[in-house]
């Protein structure tokens, strides 16, 4: 069971809704993933365009916990405003704090992320900040009282997986709130590795929506996260430099 603030979930996969080829594929991928948490972005709409598709209406939102992000915010103030707009929908009180400091790397700005998280906690939000894998920054966020820490595995959409498993483990070891690995997951084994490090969940989007077959990849991710979690709980063998026989070594010489 994954507990974030007052919410509890059976699935440890948080799925982004960006860049799917079409709504049908997206709906099927969401089904296969068995996710219970969907992330969204907030954007201006053209109210005079009737046929403008509406993502939420393509899904039965009642079945999911919605996690709007503050993507697009360049500072804390903008992030807080986007979060409040999202909450005003009456559909959610969770928010993924995302304050990007650099367009090339899309890496988060530590100072503005701290500020935005602090402000949104005051406003009563359930706050999940997207952060770098800076260990002390994660601790600072936890000290503010955020409900989960979401360190990036590698740059958003880069599919490079977990570049620094050591920092990831340090963050997980020190945290008393859930740690959700967010951004950079490229394939199933990346998600499994995140869970093996002890992460409480994984948030991914492009790895599924950008796969040749998003529906099948959604299933792969679901299985990988379960596999990684089970492996973490099972307690893996230690790595050894040299070999250890799995077949008995005594009584080998037959005749």
């Amino acid at each position: 069971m994954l507990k974030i603030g007052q919410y509890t979930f059976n699935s440890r996969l948080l799925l982004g809704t960006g860049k799917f080829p079409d709504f049908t594929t997206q709906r099927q991928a969401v089904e296969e993933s068995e996710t219970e948490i969907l992330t969204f972005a907030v954007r201006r709409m053209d109210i005079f365009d009737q046929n403008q598709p509406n993502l939420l209406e393509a899904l039965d939102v009642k079945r999911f916990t919605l996690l709007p992000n503050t993507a697009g915010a360049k500072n804390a103030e903008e992030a807080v405003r986007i979060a409040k707009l999202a909450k005003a929908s009456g559909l959610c009180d969770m928010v993924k704090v995302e304050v990007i400091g650099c367009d090339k790397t899309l890496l988060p700005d530590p100072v503005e992320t701290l500020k935005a998280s602090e402000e949104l906690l005051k406003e009563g939000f359930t706050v999940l900040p997207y952060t770098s894998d800076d260990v002390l920054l994660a601790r600072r966020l936890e000290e503010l009282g955020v409900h989960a820490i979401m360190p990036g595995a590698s740059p958003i959409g880069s599919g490079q997986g977990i570049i620094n498993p050591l920092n990831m483990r340090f963050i997980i070891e020190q945290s008393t709130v859930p740690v959700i690995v967010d951004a950079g997951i490229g394939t199933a084994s990346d998600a499994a590795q995140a869970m093996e490090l002890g992460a409480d969940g994984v948030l991914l989007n492009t790895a599924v929506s950008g796969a040749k077959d998003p529906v099948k990849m959604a299933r792969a991710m679901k299985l990988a996260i379960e596999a990684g979690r089970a492996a973490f709980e099972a307690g893996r063998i230690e790595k050894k430099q040299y070999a250890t026989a799995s077949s008995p070594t005594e009584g080998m010489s037959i005749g």
Partner: protein
Amino acid sequence: MNLIINGKTVTVGEEIETVQHLLQAQNLHERVVIVELNKNILQKEEHSDASLKDGDALEVVSFVGGG
């Protein structure tokens, strides 16, 4: 009456007296639409009481795909 919606000036009929009217006119009252009126974010239930006057600035936003 002129309104500034998402930065663009738009002329609407006199019958549009509230935010709710505006959304209904576009068939959006049932949908996920969030409105900010003159920098003041409205909760859904406030839409019907939020009266519009000439020159009001509105932000109308919704949810789109994102990660």
